[in-house]
């Protein structure tokens, strides 16, 4: 597995962690927990967008190892 493939795996795992952390934060009480959950979901969404853009870029440019994952 190349670094770019491993990077995509890592970003997917990180996005799932953000989702899980957000759900965990919602189990707490108070506005701080809701804010933490919101930030976590937002970071997760940013990671999904970043991962999709990264995947598209390495597939399109092929500047590394002929564009193959």
């Amino acid at each position: 597995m190349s670094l770019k493939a491993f990077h995509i795996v890592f970003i997917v795992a990180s996005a799932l962690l953000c989702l899980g952390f957000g759900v965990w934060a919602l189990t707490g009480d108070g506005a701080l927990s809701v804010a933490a959950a919101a930030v976590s979901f937002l970071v997760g969404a940013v990671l999904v967008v970043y991962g999709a853009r990264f995947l598209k870029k390495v597939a399109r440019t092929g500047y590394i190892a002929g564009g193959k994952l």
Partner: protein
Amino acid sequence: MQIPFTVAPRPDTGVNNAKIGVWLFLASEVMLFGGLFSAYIFLRIGAPEWPGEIGGHMYERASDILNVPLATLNTLILIGSSVTMVMSWASLAMKRFDRYRLYMGATIALGFAFLIVKAFEYGEKFSHGYLPAENNFLAIYFVLTGLHGLHVIGGIIVNMYFMWPGARMWKTDPKRFTNRIEIAGLYWHFVDLVWIFLFPTIYLL
């Protein structure tokens, strides 16, 4: 004498020797951390209360004793460092050595930031007398996070080598140097991925 297959893929494996080597090493690391995660599971299954009694207080959740905000900050730091690590490698692939230096420097700085935050977290525990010998929860917490921290230190040392003395190879053999950064990046991503599993397991569940 030229060492064969340091850049070009071997016909029988389909990848170069460095990549095979680092994946074999990472497989052994999976077994090391996997064993410790198994120990965590068995300790937790066997414990009547988790984390249990620490310093005369009964704790029902790990998040009551551990500093979740600091660990969350460390998670964001490591995610960021993985992005800068892959960008440093991509910069070399695009023959932008100046950008490589920038991204690799950022990766090293983020690695140090992780360790500083971790030192604060450990200092907080030590100041309350929460040591590994206190109970099983703290023992497995310090073993898992401590071993992970040692891996981060190892990664920083490797990255610092490639930032300064090892970077001379860029002038003599740029393809091989780019390959070396990919190998270092695979290790760094593995260490970061371990934290992605470790953080919810230890701090949240």
